């Protein structure tokens, strides 16, 4: 999932907070990955793959993200670095505002993390099954994307984006804010669910392919 909110819509404090959080975690990440030169190459390759994969037409108005796959392959810290670079490049041509890079990185990294840990757990749970890779991959992807949608809705919620609050004062503000958030959620969730199903299916099929052709790429 990627927040497509342009610049100037979300409040200053929220996107600065987003950048601050990402910078702190990036600081930790570059220390954690010190000495892992080869995985750095993989992180760059994964960032490039994510950019290229977004252009592959699926015949529906949805583009594949591969964030969960990135989390599975790279692990948490390199996935963060990869996600940041990808979001930065996307923001340079308006695919998500430049002020939103911090928040977008948080959402993307969240998907990578959920994907990484769920995949690990589910692989063990389905250990003896021949279909453990695709099943674990599909379930992790679906869950990660649904949860990231909740995260995005939450971000929009705490941002307080609501035209009523910019014009009216606080009398009816909170009811209208909730109404706007509910409308936003009602619009976003179904679309995201469909996207999550598509991405989960595609991720499972990719894992089947990769397992056949280059199993060493997938940990576990």
């Amino acid at each position, binding site marked *: 999932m990627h927040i*497509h*909110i*342009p*610049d*100037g*819509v979300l409040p*200053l404090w929220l996107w600065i907070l987003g950048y601050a959080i990402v910078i702190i975690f*990036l600081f930790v990440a*570059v220390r954690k990955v*010190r000495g892992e*030169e*080869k995985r*750095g*190459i*993989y992180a*760059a*390759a994964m*960032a*490039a*793959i994510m*950019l*290229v*994969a*977004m*252009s*592959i037409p*699926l*015949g529906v108005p949805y583009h*594949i993200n*591969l964030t969960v796959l990135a989390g599975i392959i790279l692990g948490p810290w390199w996935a963060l*670095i*990869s996600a940041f*670079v990808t979001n*930065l*490049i*996307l*923001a*340079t*041509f*308006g*695919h998500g*505002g*430049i*002020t939103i890079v911090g928040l977008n990185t948080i959402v993307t990294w969240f998907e990578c993390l959920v994907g990484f840990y769920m995949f690990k757990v589910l692989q063990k749970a389905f250990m003896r099954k021949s279909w453990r890779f695709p099943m674990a991959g599909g379930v992790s992807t679906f869950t990660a994307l649904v949860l990231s949608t909740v995260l995005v809705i939450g971000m929009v919620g705490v941002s307080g*984006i609501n*035209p*009523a609050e*910019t*014009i*009216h004062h606080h009398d009816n503000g909170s009811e209208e804010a909730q109404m706007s958030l509910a409308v936003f959620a009602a619009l976003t969730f179904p679309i995201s669910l469909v996207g999550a199903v*598509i991405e989960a299916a*595609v991720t499972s*099929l*990719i*894992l089947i*392919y*990769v397992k056949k*052709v*280059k199993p060493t*790429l997938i940990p576990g």
Partner: protein
Amino acid sequence: MRISATIYLIDHYANNLSSPMHKASTLSKLISAIAALGITIFTNSALALMAEFLIILTFIGAAKLPISRLLSWALYPAFFASLFALSQIPYSLVLPIITIFRAINTALIMLFLISTTPYPELFSILSTPSKTLGNVAFLTYRFFFLFIEQTGERFTVMKARGGLAGSWKIKITNLAHFIGMLFVTSFETSENMYAAMKTRGYSGSISYHKKLRQKFGKQDLIPILFTLCILALMIISTFFKARGLFV
């Protein structure tokens, strides 16, 4: 939105076109873009934002960039801004205009920067706080162009062989396998590149020697002028707005 085609074209404009803006130093362009973005985001005047839109287009044209193409790219964030703008209409007719033009203008400022400044010049700034970040950014740039060529050719072949002609199930399966193949071959390319880098003594650092080290000169007048125009516009609009004469 064809993301890959966009990155490809932006890279072409930044590397293969020439204008005074292209020749300006990376730092001056970056500082002017950040300043312009800041001014735009905090402007609450619809007329000022519309006038700013025209100023940005003028500078884009002066940099020999294709105005219509950059504008079409800026319409993408404008579309999402309009979703928010729609919900503002019941409350004000001016707010939606502000929301949409803010989105278009910030996108155009970024496009103006990135179409006149090669990506590696901007990534070299990332290298300053963190070599790791800079390396990943440089290599992502390099890998992108390697992978997109391979992917484009293979996608054409897949289509020619009827890979997207069957039922939905077949299409999704073929697309997924295609992406899986992209995945595997891309990782193999990255492994080969790593092997080549090791033979060249790679120890974790990729450098970029160019424009960041460029001294400020008269070519930097353009980005400075750009920001000053926007700043002047916003000061004027604030002045008139304070007197209730501007919207």
